Each structure stands twice: as structure tokens, then as C-alpha cells.
């Protein structure tokens, strides 16, 4: 996440004026595009879907930023939009309507994606993650890849810190077991 060099306060100042709105939105996209992309990509797996969901996310941010009341962090608000966008895109395309992949569906999806360059172990890891229940998978992504503090995750997902730690613990154990079984 090295692209973020502007504070949320400054972004919101720019977005609050008709004269600086477009400039503020440009800076917001530049600041958050990578972080949101990787969050979405790990849910939808294919680059094409991730690009689609990310653009939809920013379109919704563009149209809805005037309704942002500042009750949560700007990033938390966008994270929520991105998560919903990714999950609804996956369900809409009917690749895994329940939000989870079974068997080797994730591996098959990644093998078909020209922008996956991992080995068999990494395929197994993605397959194991994709097989988790939706919320457990989100918790795993947010902690394992995004290194999000449990406190921030609690605000984002509306779950207690204790429950999130337990959820992450279970997710890790399930994935490890899945990989070992092969």
C-alpha cells in the first residue's frame, strides 16, 4: 500500500467542494486503487472480474461520496462497498452462487486466468481459502493478506474482536488441514 500519501481528512476536504471534487476523487482513486484491487482480487480470483468489480466500486464511491457521513473511516466505507461488489459479482456470474468454491473450482478458475503465475502449492492454498464460508474467508483475507488490525476489522464486519480472532484461528487450521491432505 505505498501509493497512499494523502490523508483522508484532506481528501474529504477536497471532495466537499464543487470546485475541487474531481481533483479529490482522482487523488482518492490513486490512493486506494491497489489496496482495494487486491482485496477484491482475492475474493473473485480472476483479474478480469477484479477489474470489473474495482471499477464498479469507484463508480459507486463517486456517486455516493456525498452521502459519506464520516461515522467510519473512509477506507472502511470503501472496503465495504468493494466487498459487496466482489461478492455480488461472483454470485451474479454464477461461478459459485453461495460465495464459496467447492472441490477444485478455484484452482480451475486460476488455471484459466492468464494473470495467475503461482505453483501447485499456491493453487492449493487458493483452493483451500475459496472453500471457507464467506465470512471466515473475509476474515482470513483481511488478516492474512491485508494485515488489518482486529479492531478495524471489527468496525468493518460488525463482529467482536474475540469472535474475529477465533474465526481467523479456525480458518488457519482448516486451510492447513486442506493443504496437508492435498
Amino acid at each position, binding site marked *: 500500500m505505498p*501509493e497512499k500519501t494523502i490523508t483522508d481528512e484532506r481528501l474529504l476536504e477536497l471532495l*466537499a*467542494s*464543487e470546485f475541487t*471534487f474531481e481533483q479529490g476523487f*482522482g487523488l482518492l*482513486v*490513486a490512493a486506494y*486503487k*491497489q489496496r482495494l*484491487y*487486491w482485496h477484491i*482480487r*482475492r475474493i473473485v*480470483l480472476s*483479474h478480469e472480474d477484479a*477489474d470489473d468489480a*474495482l*471499477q464498479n466500486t*469507484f*463508480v459507486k464511491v*463517486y*456517486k455516493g*461520496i*456525498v*452521502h459519506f457521513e464520516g461515522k467510519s473511516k473512509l477506507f472502511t466505507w470503501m472496503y465495504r462497498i468493494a466487498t459487496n461488489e466482489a461478492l455480488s459479482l461472483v454470485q451474479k456470474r454464477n461461478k459459485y452462487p453461495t460465495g464459496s468454491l467447492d472441490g477444485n473450482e478455484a484452482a480451475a478458475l*486460476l488455471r484459466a486466468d492468464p*494473470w*495467475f*503465475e*503461482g*505453483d501447485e*502449492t*499456491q*493453487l492449493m*492454498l*487458493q483452493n483451500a481459502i475459496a472453500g471457507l464460508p464467506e465470512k471466515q474467508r473475509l476474515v482470513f483475507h483481511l*488478516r*492474512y*493478506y491485508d*494485515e488489518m488490525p482486529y479492531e478495524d476489522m471489527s468496525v468493518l464486519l460488525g463482529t467482536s474482536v474475540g469472535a474475529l480472532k477465533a474465526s481467523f*484461528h479456525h480458518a*488457519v*487450521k482448516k*486451510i*492447513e488441514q486442506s*493443504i*496437508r491432505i492435498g
Partner: protein
Amino acid sequence: MSKKINQELEELSPLLRQLREQGDGLETPHDYFDSFEDNLKLRMAKQGVRRHALQQVHIPVQRRMWPGVLAAAASLALILGAVWYFNTGSDPRELVAMELSPEEITAYMMENAADFEPEQLAALEEVPAENNQPVTPDKTTTTPENEAVPPGGIEEIIDEMTDEELAELL
């Protein structure tokens, strides 16, 4: 932060900590992030995406209040107008008349007798009596009050009167 998550994983699953260091194998096209803004702009233009005007969101209460404010202002203006009207007299003509003396009013009406009703002129004759003020004689009028006394004096007039007329006078 990486140190913290690595410590946590080391306790939970050394295998996953090791896999994390290898990465996830997910890649993006070359210059994907550099060209993202341009692609987003194209998509938004194609879809005709428009945002809400900021003022609609920030001052909706003021907008809703405008008709009420105008109605209140109109009502206030009407009330103030009515108060002024009833406090200062209902007929502007009375304001002009108040500044004129009875003599001036009478003189004006006599000069413009054609513009007034007979009743108004008749009422005018009573004004000096009511006010105990003599009306300025006007040579052009023919009212009995303005007729000159004959040269022979009052005795001559009495001589010409009949007995009945004299009885009425006495």
C-alpha cells in the same frame, strides 16, 4: 505489522507463515494500475455516470424552507401594511384636507363647483355655521348670504315686507 502477523501465524501454523512469504501467485497486466484512472474515466463517460450536486446534500433543509420563508415574508408585509393603514387614517384625501383651512376648502370647492355633487355643496354651506367661522365671501357666487344690503338700509327692506313676513320674523 508484518512482524505481528508473522508472529501470530508462527504460533498458529508455521506452514501458512512460510506460504505467505512465497506470495499468492496473483499478477496484474503490465501498467494496469497506471492506466486504471483513464479506463475508469472512459467507463464512467460511457455509462453517463453523474454524481449528486454537493449542495443538494449539504443544504437540503434550506431548500425546503424557501417557500415557507417567502410565505412568511408576504404575510408580514401584509400585516405591517394593514397596521400602518389603520393607524394613519383610511382616506388619503383626509390627510390633504387636514392641512387646509375651512376657508381654503370652501374657496376651492366654489371655484370647482362643477366637479362636486349638489349635496356636497349644500353641506359646505353648513360648515361655517358648525365651526362658528364666517365663510369668505365670494363675489362670483349668488347664494343669499353673499347678496349685498341695499343702499337704503334695513328700514327700506322692512317697508317692502308684507305683514305675514314680518310676523314670521318676529
